[in-house]
């Protein structure tokens, strides 16, 4: 929470410095608004639901997720989020949190991962995914991003993620870099983190999953990326598809050392 306050304050100062006196009061006003919301983040409701889901025996195999290996050994939740996405030897793939949760839900609980990936956001098992993402990320709140890059496939995914980040397309010629390739910019009044480097504690990759005030829902990074691509006017990225995981590796590795404030609260 402290990190978030410092971050929003820094953001406010950056805006004030960048656009001068006239909009200083606007930036101050927005900073004040964000501060007021910090005191009760509804992400906590999702966190509690996620913890319960983690421990509940569910699915055809009637098992909980307590033996799920998120990269730090079966059942270890604390610290897992700040090291994801990473390479998993059992699936021989680099996986992000959501992709890994799908693996666990399938192997441990016998749920159908492909079905869940196809389910619209916020419904059925997807609503459960969001709660689980809130729970897992909350266990690393305050820790620093530290994605492994030792495995060759992790390095390859970083390179692919970088290429995806700069890939321009669609009727508006947008890439991720159009909005997130430079520091000190904003869209409307929202500060845009520069994701080509570490944008700072609790900013960018280190601030998701987050409760989205505008939709009143918890958004995991998968959903965040999905809506970015919607706004980029691209076709639809598959849930936990390679491009989404590669972007996670690129942003996460760039954010090395940034303190995670997930699950955060956002506009």
């Amino acid at each position, binding site marked *: 929470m402290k990190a978030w306050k410092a971050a929003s304050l820094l953001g406010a100062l950056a805006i004030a410095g960048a656009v001068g006196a006239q909009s200083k009061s606007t930036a101050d006003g927005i900073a004040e608004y964000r501060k007021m919301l910090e005191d009760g983040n509804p992400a906590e409701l999702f966190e509690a639901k996620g913890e319960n889901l983690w421990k509940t025996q569910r699915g055809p195999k009637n098992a909980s997720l307590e033996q799920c290996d998120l990269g730090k050994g079966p059942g270890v939740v604390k610290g897992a989020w700040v090291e994801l996405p990473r390479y998993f030897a059992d699936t021989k793939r680099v996986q992000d949190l959501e992709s890994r949760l799908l693996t666990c839900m399938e192997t441990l609980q016998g749920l159908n991962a492909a079905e869940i990936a196809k389910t619209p956001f916020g419904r059925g098992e997807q609503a459960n995914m969001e709660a689980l993402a809130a729970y897992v990320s909350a266990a690393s709140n305050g820790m620093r991003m530290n994605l492994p890059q030792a495995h060759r496939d992790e390095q390859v995914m970083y390179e692919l993620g970088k290429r995806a980040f*700069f*890939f321009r*397309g*669609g009727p508006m*010629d947008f890439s991720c870099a159009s909005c997130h390739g430079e520091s000190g910019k*904003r869209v409307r009044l929202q500060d845009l983190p520069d994701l080509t480097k570490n944008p700072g504690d609790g900013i960018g990759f280190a601030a998701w999953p987050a409760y989205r005030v505008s939709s009143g829902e918890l958004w995991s990074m998968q959903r965040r990326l999905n809506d970015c691509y919607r706004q980029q006017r691209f076709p639809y990225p598959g849930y936990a598809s*390679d*491009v989404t995981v590669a972007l996670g590796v690129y942003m996460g590795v760039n954010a090395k050392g940034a303190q995670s404030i997930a699950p955060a609260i956002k506009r």
Partner: protein
Amino acid sequence: MNHKITLTAAALVATLVVAGCAALQPMPSSQELDAQAAAMMKASFREQGIATMDRIEQDLGQKACSSDKAPSAKVAAQIEEAALASVKWPADGKYLGDWKEGEKLAQNGRGMTWTDKSTDPKGNGGSCYNCHQVGKAELSYGTIGPSLYNFGKLRGVADPADPKSAEVVKYTWAKLWNSKAYAACSNMPRFGHAGLLNEEQIRHLVALLLDPKSPVNQ
């Protein structure tokens, strides 16, 4: 018994070889990574509503502006030249519409996403405030592009119909139609060229920027 041990040992060796291979395998070359990235884009996306897969087939300009390095001066000039040549000028020679309609378009950031029903520009906005300050009254504006406040005034446009203003009027039209005419890797969409806005809508935006009565020039 012995047989079993041999088998296990063999499996172990196999595992080591596989793992060893993975670890020792060199990183793909930059070209190989480019090819893998292209294949990944194709495999990861699917068509949804009006957002069809041809949207990730890049044209020359999109491709040249898809890395952290700017294209060479030669390629950039080529893109700009082609962009300027692509500009469709108003058939009736009328460049200015209604700035009030222009302001509405500037405020509106909708259109062309997979949740939109049609690609007809009639339902689209210009999204100007997302990236630019435009009129002074709107506090919520982006800073990806430069401020457009006093756009016409700063360029000495007192009467857009005056022949003296013709150059600025045409520049404004062309910038809106195909922004890449003046900057190969501009972050700004090609509103006319890409069919995001129709001629009438672009006229309204030109008026918003150049009409002395528009809040932009107050």
